[in-house]
């Protein structure tokens, strides 16, 4: 097998002189033989592999055949490119040829894979002149070359930045965790890599709602992990048979395994553990009337601050509250939520004006257990009637006053 070395440039050329010496009096490959070039996908250029040495007139004729309808000739039969896996080295079945496009450019046959060659994988290109519908190439042997795009230096290891909710005491009917990572993670492995353990370190049996499509944010750095609602809701079989996932008074640890690969395929820097104790169930809906509002002062850019009697959903807090000025226009500014998600503050881009502002609250805002302002997580219809808010928003007015003179 021809061995190759990676040159300094991005072009790799492997010259293979065809075994049968060509007769110069007839058409066919030039005397120099057939050469396969690998082209890495650096510098914004696509990955490609090319065959050089087919006579231009032959290339043109073959090109025309491949474009006829229906095509009477397929380049992929003559010049397949495959991924080489371990079982092939051991004589395993040949894998299907990689999807891509074949073109003739500058007297070369060029194959561009639909997806760039992946670093670390071994690719094999085979040019089979004997399969060309041209008599003059029949006596030439196949040429095969392999290529591996080198692995880039490993990026700094990805780590778990934090897990929300942050508290060390969480309600036993907790609905979800948010796992924040320092870089995008790979998908399809979450439920294998995260465990919830009891005080003795034993993993709980299927505590999470395992979904086909994992709940990632668009950047791939935040995963929402829902605790199985069938074991949180009362009156459903999973909870009746197995009991709730968390029980008040007991200690638990959420463990994120180091083995979880990030989007580049590298494991995490280290495993992450979050220990907490379960407290009593939270069955009270968040109610803006119970929020403590600390209004800002006019002509300043100091924050408007809210303090909640219980932690609310850290993620939703960042988008569920909007400030309207006395004219009813949205105020631009910066939202901050403290780690415990009990305090929300807003710094306006421009100083506050004197007057009556409104804080508009999206009623879908939830607490840690899925009770929203609009509706509780579950309604006991035999119990006292729970108010249900049908509107999408509710308002909390606050007054911005001029600064008192000392």
């Amino acid at each position: 097998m021809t061995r190759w070395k990676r040159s300094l440039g991005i072009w790799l050329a492997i010259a293979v002189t065809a075994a049968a010496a060509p007769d110069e009096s007839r058409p066919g490959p030039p005397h120099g033989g057939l050469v396969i070039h690998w082209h890495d996908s650096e510098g914004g250029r696509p990955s490609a592999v090319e065959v050089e040495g087919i006579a231009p007139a032959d290339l043109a004729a073959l090109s025309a055949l491949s474009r006829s309808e229906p095509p009477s000739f397929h380049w992929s039969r003559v010049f397949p490119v495959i991924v080489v896996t371990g079982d092939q080295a051991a004589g395993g079945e040949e894998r299907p040829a990689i999807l891509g496009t074949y073109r003739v450019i500058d007297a070369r046959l060029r194959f561009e894979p639909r997806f760039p060659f992946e670093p670390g994988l071994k690719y094999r290109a085979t040019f089979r002149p004997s399969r060309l519908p041209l008599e003059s190439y029949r006596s030439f042997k196949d040429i095969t070359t392999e290529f591996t795009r080198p692995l880039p230096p490993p990026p700094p290891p990805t780590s778990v930045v934090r897990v929300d909710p942050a508290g060390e005491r969480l309600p036993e009917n907790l609905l979800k965790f948010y796992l924040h990572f320092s870089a995008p993670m790979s998908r399809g492995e979450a439920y294998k890599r995260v465990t919830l353990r009891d005080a003795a370190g034993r993993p709980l049996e299927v505590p999470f709602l395992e979904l086909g499509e994992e709940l990632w944010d668009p950047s791939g750095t935040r995963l929402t992990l829902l605790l199985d609602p069938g074991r949180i809701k009362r009156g459903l079989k999973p909870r009746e048979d197995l009991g709730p996932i968390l029980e008040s008074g007991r200690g638990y640890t959420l463990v994120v395994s180091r083995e979880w690969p990030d989007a580049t395929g590298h494991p995490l820097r280290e495993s992450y553990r979050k220990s907490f104790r379960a407290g009593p169930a939270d069955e009270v809906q968040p109610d803006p009337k119970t929020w403590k509002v600390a209004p800002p002062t006019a002509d300043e850019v100091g924050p408007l601050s809210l303090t909640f009697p219980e932690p609310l959903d850290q993620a939703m807090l960042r988008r569920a509250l909007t400030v309207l000025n006395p004219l009813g226009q949205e105020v631009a500014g910066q939202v901050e939520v403290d780690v415990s998600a009990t305090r929300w503050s807003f710094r306006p881009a421009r100083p506050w004006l004197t007057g009556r502002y409104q804080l508009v609250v999206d009623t879908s805002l939830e607490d840690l257990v899925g009770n929203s302002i609009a509706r509780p997580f579950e309604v006991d219809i035999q119990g006292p009637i729970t108010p249900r808010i049908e509107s999408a928003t509710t308002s909390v007015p606050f007054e911005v006053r001029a600064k008192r003179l000392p």
Partner: protein
Amino acid sequence: MLKTRIVTTALAALVLAGGSVGAAGLSKGTPDWKSAGPLAFGPKGVLFLADSQGAAIIAVDTGDVQADSAAGALKVEGLDEKVAALLGTTSKGIVITDLAVNPASGKAYLTVARGKGPNAAPVLVRVDRSGKLEVVSLESLPFAKAALPNPPTKERAKSESVTDLAFVDGRVFIAGLSNEEFASRLLSIPYPFADSSQGTSVEIYHGAHGRFETGSPVRTFTPYQVKGESYLLAAYTCTPLVKLPVAQLKPGTHVKGTTIAELGNHNKPLDLLVYQKDGKDFLLLTNSSRGVMKIQTDKVDSQEGITKKINDTAGLPYETIQGLKGVTQLDGLDKEHALILVQTPTGALNLETIALP
């Protein structure tokens, strides 16, 4: 009991297809398909692709309307490795996200994510009866796109996942789940997509033993006919199986649905299929922990909602099909057969045809 509230005010689905609108509202072009997810077939080879990242439903005319001439059972061993090979990678570099059979041709279609990070490319793969795999290019095909509400943005970490979709009586039903709020959402968009087709969001509550009412996302559902009337049989993330009358899922109405079965512990339904055998209707349900379950549905129309506690799996009678373990995807192939995607003990994925039990 289950109560359904339809909210129309907040959500609207807008058709985004550019160019002139041709037959059935589709126009030729290349849809901007951002992420692989659930897929479902409509009439005459029209395929609906759910694109969570692009916050859209894409309708594509596959043109695949001729019945596959090759006879025999559809079977591909090591499907994941073979798909990966086509895409220039190994099975570790792909995720097969869904499987559906085109009823017009009997060919299988798979949505595949090429890559595992947030930038994974979506790919549509077709498998014919001879087991031949082919990547279906969406270039220059007749298509239309309906936007889903709340598209994710760079500034917002919120996104909506689509858990399942189906075409029923001229509407595409979409079950979704947010990565932030926990709410039950069922969206319906009339097809062909109109210029400003109104998506109807249905908020569903289901009861537990007549006492607690809760909202919960739908994990998978399937259309189903009882005495000429269309229903959706929906499996919830918290296990109840409920019946929703399609005709009543209209804006501004309150719909009462019924919990017809509770499936019990660790019973995470993955796919549902309704079929007929010996003049009776059955429901086949794949399940992460119990394998494949066969449920008699001839009692669905008379089944009273579960309103009190029953000790074992409540509601409709069911049996677990022995010998079918590791089934991750399921769809009907023809009247007598289903197509399944099975994970073998070694981790490989096989596509297999089974006789309907």
